[in-house]
């Protein structure tokens, strides 16, 4: 089996699962309990938080555990809305965000907020000048993803940050779910970014784990209110085994990051260089800088995306139509529509997403299978 759908999810790493298991069995006290059994769990959780903070060179108090990317995005957007609605009700985001950002903004729209969705160019990238032009006195939040989940475009996070330095009251959120372990920390944790959302299962941690970086001094209302855990920012009994396992997964990712990024880029290039030669293939992702090393989106004109996915699946290769979350709904991808990719190509688009486990041999195998499948598809195309 060749698994090329790492942006959808990843397999939990064995040593990460080991940690989850040990913590569940041996350090299962409630971190909020007063007694030493709880205290011990608290210490472990805080040590995990410290480790994550150290790996990203931020403060431990700036790491807040959540249940994953969707919660993180919802929290920052709605938490900002709740905390700052008295100062304004205008939010700027992009037309290519993940649904976990897009739909919360839609919900806020129904409540009377005004949302600006920035357009993108043919590479799926916003223009920082558009951010500047969209800013109004009542703007409270700018939310931009670091790496697009469908085609891998890296957004100009730093340039937007530079613009926002003139507007210190505006919250700046980066959905970094696809950016972890891809050599992009400088971007995601650049000095003007206030919030960054992460999801554990994208980097070999268990489902239901994640965290948000919340810069010191920035105020968010809690989305989950209750017993006051996570310094009242996110209530609910702490997911000690999950959070500790995630801390370990992050350490492993960071240790392998440089080599993994290089390898993923090489795999991407090998596939790109091979398939881009075919007449009916449209490359939607870029090959080099400006795009993340692990995502490659392309279309075979005249063949529906689902057909391509299932054809590869028959050969034991797992890829995806653009985004797993929207791929069962037969709607063409949000990102491609925003890029004004014609419908007939957008419906033919598929996504390869690489992880640190993939190899160059798998790229060769993929290319070989591609040749066979393309020969078959040619009959229906022409």
């Amino acid at each position: 089996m060749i698994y090329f759908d790492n942006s959808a999810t990843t397999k939990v790493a064995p040593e990460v699962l080991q940690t989850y298991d040990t913590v569940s069995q041996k350090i299962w006290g409630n971190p909020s309990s007063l007694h030493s059994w709880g205290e011990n769990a608290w210490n472990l959780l805080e040590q995990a938080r410290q480790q994550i903070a150290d790996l990203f060179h931020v403060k431990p108090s700036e790491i807040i555990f959540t249940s994953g990317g969707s919660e993180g995005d919802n929290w920052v957007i709605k938490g900002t809305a709740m905390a700052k609605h008295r100062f304004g009700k205008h939010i700027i985001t992009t037309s290519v965000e993940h649904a976990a950002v897009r739909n919360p903004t839609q919900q806020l729209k129904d409540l009377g907020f005004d949302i600006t969705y920035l357009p993108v160019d043919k590479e799926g990238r916003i223009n920082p000048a558009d951010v500047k032009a969209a800013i109004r006195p009542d703007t409270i939040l700018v939310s931009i993803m670091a790496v697009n989940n469908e085609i891998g475009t890296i957004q100009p996070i730093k340039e937007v940050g530079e613009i926002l330095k003139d507007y210190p009251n505006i919250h700046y959120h980066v959905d970094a779910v696809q950016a972890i372990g891809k050599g992009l920390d400088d971007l995601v944790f650049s000095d003007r970014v206030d919030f960054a959302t992460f999801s554990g299962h994208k980097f070999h941690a268990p489902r239901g784990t994640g965290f948000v970086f919340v810069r010191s001094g920035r105020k968010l209302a809690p989305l989950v209110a209750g017993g006051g855990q996570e310094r009242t920012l996110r209530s609910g009994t702490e997911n000690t085994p999950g959070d500790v396992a995630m801390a370990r997964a992050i350490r492993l990712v960071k240790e392998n990051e440089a080599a993994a990024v290089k390898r993923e880029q090489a795999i991407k290039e090998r596939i790109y260089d091979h398939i881009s030669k075919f007449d009916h293939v449209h490359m939607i992702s870029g090959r080099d800088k400006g795009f993340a090393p692990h995502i490659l989106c392309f279309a075979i004109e005249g063949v529906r995306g689902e057909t391509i996915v299932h054809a590869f699946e028959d050969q034991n290769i797992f890829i995806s139509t653009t985004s797993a979350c929207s791929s069962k709904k037969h709607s063409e991808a949000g990102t491609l529509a925003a890029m004004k990719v014609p419908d007939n190509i957008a419906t033919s688009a598929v996504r390869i997403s690489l992880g640190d486990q993939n190899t160059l041999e798998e790229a060769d195998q993929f290319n070989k299978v591609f040749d066979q499948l393309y020969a078959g598809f040619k009959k229906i195309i022409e």
Partner: protein
Amino acid sequence: MEYTEIMVRYGELSTKGHNKKNFIDRLGANVRKALHRFEQVKVHAQRDRLHVELNGANYDQVMNRLKDVFGIQNFSPSIRVDKTFAATAAAAVKMVQEQVDHPITFKINTRRSDHKFPIDTFEMNDRLGGYLLQKFPDLLKVDVHHPDLTIRVEIRLNGIFLSSETIQGAGGLPVGTAGKGMMMLSGGIDSPVAAYLGMKRGVSMEMVHFFSPPYTSPQALAKAKQLTAKLARYSGSIRFIQVPFAEIQETVKEKVPEGYLMTVQRRMMLRLAAALTMKRHGLAIFNGESLGQVASQTMESMLVINDVTNLPVLRPVLSFDKTEIIALAKQIDTYDLSILPYEDCCTVFTPPSPKTKPNLERTRKYEQRLDIDGLIKRALDGIKITEIHNGEDFLNQNEDVFAELL
């Protein structure tokens, strides 16, 4: 730049007359203690300066430790070269290359203690400045009054030393030069700050902590020890004296009217601290009281509580606002520990409305109901003394076990 030594300038102590030698010796010992894990480092405490010879030790790490040593005004990482103009000029060129990437102003500041060296101060300034100007015509301009960069050249018997950076030290007086003090450390925000300020004025502190199991939690004790470990970075290590206080609290609660509970408890604490001070050859008691902050910290309360001892009771944060104390606590990194929510001996047995203006005569009368000497003796018999070192961990004892999971 591969620095070879750190040159340390003394603070106030250079004005301390005939005590100067004691101060310098103590500072030298404190610096050696702070740097003991850098085995190759040599410390020379001389009349005018202290020199830390690096011998290959990491200068960033060494400088980080020096920042916590009281009695240091400032210090400069320096590079030692052979006593020739050519070697001096080469090192200065390298300094400029590494530190200057846009046009700036500079000056050379030479000091010559080896008067046999043929180039005098004026000539060195002139020649070296001219040499650098000619080497970096686009980058450098001379400004002797407000230069962006000052290259210091010291011509000493054992070499020529160049430096360009001056880093602020912790100031104050070397710990130990003022004698020993007993710090009443509760675990709150104020007492660690008071301890820090006392140490900064040269006091060698010992911590006295009252604990009352089961009314106080083991975590509260661990927290007080953790705070001590934090403060130990200013002196290498600190003795921590835990005093059992439950029997006294129970007895006082039983026999003394509610309004006077706090006052009498405080008097008992002060008696214990005073007894420990005498026994351990201390000169004063320190606490974290700030005037008017809580009931026990009115002047009336202080008068009545102070009645039990003639020893000086020193209160370094007496006139500080809470916000000022918090700012200092954050600066010395004790704040986050202090706000951990564990019950300590000051928060249990606190009556709902303690007297803010207790009456001395009445207090003495109520105390006649207590066997003071017996209570004090039993508490002192139960003390436990631990030597706590910089960086020790008491709150998370399983850190190493947990590291395996992470």
